[in-house]
């Protein structure tokens, strides 16, 4: 007999590959949330008065809100007073180069295969690494500066470009938008800021690796990307997190603004946070608000996401199609295994004339996982001659998992066109046997079939990410065909 894992059950027993903890001293706020904690964060970050007021306003509103109950996910109540809202690795001064970065931290990245040196040298990707809550290294900054591109941590942007932050912060996701967005607005610690001036095409993929590290720390990043007229930027967000027993809340907010005519923003995510163990213990709660606004005529925002991690995923990267002829796209692969739950999809709000949106969603459910696609296509009255095409496919591996589709379609004019296609299929014993008969192991067979299923989404990813995504899928799909 061969020594490779033969049954999917054996594959399912593999441990989370990226589980390890880095030992770095953190400067941490006491547990719990109140106005003093928010002031503590604001002081720590040396913020202007208006931003503190903005946070406090969000917090006061948050107190009046209730956690959403409509998603098709189940979890124990979160105790928001039992969490730490600020934690930063202790460092005397900000590093100017990688040599000044804590070697322990660099080793962590190396374990993940994303050594900054390597990335800097080989791929030409500028990396703004977010380790817990504070950016520790930013590369390629000078090169970008020459073009007038601003790419820095959110805290730096607040210090150095307060007028831009003030103009755009909350302009797409208002601080009172929803429960988790309000929470984020009150306590967000850091994140990325990116500004592409008029007529500039960003020559490299901008990339940020997020990593949740200190125990019991909710991480609340804030990302803001602004693209002016005739500019283009492709932004990559990738995540892995170490193994934990306690559930960790992650409530990020991402705002994209294609401000000028023909501005283009491409935002790609590979999310591989700790999904919990085989019994569904632990894992990250990923409650994220991502939204983009196509303000300019002919502007375009494209979301591509590969979601393989987290115990619970709740996110709907959306596009407001305000400018005439603007384009919104959403390409998604969501994988749930063991006891993971995902309720994810998109909202395409058509306001301008001749606006176009495309939705391609691939949901893969294995183990006891539960996967829901929830999407809204809303074509307003003024959005004449607008078009949407949606395709939602679900693949089931095994017979204990679930796939659900909740499409909402509203069209308020008669000249627009909406198409919706949906399919659900089960990975076939026939397909697996066919692959095995050609010499492939069960594991390779499942990977091959699943990767084939996701192909339309993967081809939207930048090259280096596509490779990583395919590997991730293999690691995540532990547990499948019964």
């Amino acid at each position: 007999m061969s020594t490779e894992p033969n049954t999917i059950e054996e594959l399912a027993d593999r441990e989370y590959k990226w589980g390890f903890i880095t030992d770095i001293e953190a400067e941490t706020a006491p547990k719990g949330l109140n106005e003093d904690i928010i002031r503590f964060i604001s002081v720590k970050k040396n913020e202007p008065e208006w931003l503190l007021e903005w946070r406090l306003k969000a917090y006061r509103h948050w107190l009046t809100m209730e956690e959403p109950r409509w998603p098709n996910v189940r979890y124990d109540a979160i105790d928001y007073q039992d969490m730490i809202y600020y934690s930063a690795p202790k460092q005397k001064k900000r590093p100017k180069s990688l040599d000044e970065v804590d070697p322990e931290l660099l080793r962590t990245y190396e374990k993940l295969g994303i050594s900054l040196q390597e990335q800097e040298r080989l791929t030409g990707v500028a990396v703004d690494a977010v380790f817990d809550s504070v950016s520790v290294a930013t590369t390629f900054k000078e090169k970008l500066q020459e073009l007038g591109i601003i790419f820095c941590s959110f805290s730096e942007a607040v210090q150095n470009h307060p007028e831009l932050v003030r103009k755009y912060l909350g302009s797409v996701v208002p601080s009172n938008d929803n429960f988790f967005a309000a929470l984020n607005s009150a306590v967000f610690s850091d994140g990325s800021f990116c500004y592409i001036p008029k007529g500039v095409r960003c020559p490299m993929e901008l990339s940020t690796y997020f990593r949740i590290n200190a125990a019991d720390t909710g991480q609340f990043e804030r990302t803001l990307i602004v693209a002016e007229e005739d500019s283009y930027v492709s932004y990559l967000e990738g995540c892995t997190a170490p193994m934990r027993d306690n559930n960790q809340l992650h409530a990020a907010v991402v705002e994209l603004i294609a401000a000028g005519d023909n501005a283009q923003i491409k935002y790609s995510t590979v999310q591989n946070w700790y999904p919990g163990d085989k019994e569904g213990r632990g894992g990250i709660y990923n409650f994220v608000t991502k939204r983009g606004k196509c303000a300019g005529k002919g502007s375009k925002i494209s979301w591509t996401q590969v979601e393989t991690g987290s115990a619970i995923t709740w996110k709907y990267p959306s596009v407001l199609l305000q400018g005439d002829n603007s384009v919104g796209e959403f390409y998604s692969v969501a994988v749930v295994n063991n006891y993971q739950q995902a309720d994810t999809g998109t909202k395409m709000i058509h306001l301008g004339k001749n606006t176009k949106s495309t939705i391609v969603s691939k949901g893969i459910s294995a183990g006891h996982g539960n996967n829901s696609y929830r999407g809204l296509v809303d074509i307003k009255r003024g959005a004449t001659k607008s078009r949407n095409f949606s395709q939602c496919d679900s693949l089931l591996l095994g017979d204990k998992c679930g796939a659900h589709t909740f499409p909402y379609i509203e069209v308020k004019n008669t000249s627009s066109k909406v198409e919706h296609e949906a399919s659900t299929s089960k990975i076939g014993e026939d397909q697996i046997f066919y692959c095995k008969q050609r010499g492939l192991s069960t594991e390779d067979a499942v990977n091959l079939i699943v990767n084939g299923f996701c192909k339309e989404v993967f081809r939207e990813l930048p090259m280096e990410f596509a490779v990583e995504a395919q590997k991730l899928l293999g690691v995540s799909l532990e547990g499948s065909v019964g």
Partner: protein
Amino acid sequence: MLEIKNLHASVNGNEILNGINLNVKAGEVHAIMGPNGSGKSTLAQLLAGRDTYSVSQGGVTYEGKDLLDMDPEERAREGLFLAFQYPVEIPGVSNTYFLKAALNAIRKHKGLEELDAVEFLQLVKQRMKLVDMDETLLNRPVNEGFSGGEKKRNEIFHMAVLEPKLAILDETDSGLDIDALRIVADGVNKLRRRDNAIIVVTHYQRLLNYIVPDFVHVLVDGRIVKSGGKELALQLEEKGYDWVKDEAGKAAVQA
């Protein structure tokens, strides 16, 4: 190469194979014929490792090893190939990508170096000619949207690339028109060698006009009731399966 001894197998308690005995040596081509439901495809699939069948008695030795103890992928890597009666579609996976993964899994098992994309493409171009494959079928997803004939041709193309020691062709002729049948058969003939063997499973005799077997076996009710040379196939074509069934019936009564 292959030795099947008194093989009994069932699905959900229904006995389908009732004591098959068969010896296949290197260089030989065996045809297994029989009426619908006689157990031909069961035998083919069981040899390839399909686990829907349970073996209650007997055994199979392949190259000196217990075949039934091997996983399907291990059998494949050891050179056993099944051309499927109903080739399976794998959406989104290109035919070449699939075949390269398969070939390299086999090469790795044999301790050979894996082929890179350039080397593989050269091999593919050469083997394509054997079955007159349309180049567009290479980059299309495995079997997706292929016509019945294209699927069967693709199976033989896989065989040409993987170069198995023992190939089992399960009703490869079904769904083929006469021209396609000739092309597929020509391809198989070009792959015949002294060191490999082929088992052709078929309902009709016509394929055997092109792939001329050394032995013909008639399977009825899960048992080989008659074996002979290539002329047996012609007799069957002429007299039908009832003829062997009757003979087998009489033999059983006498025994």
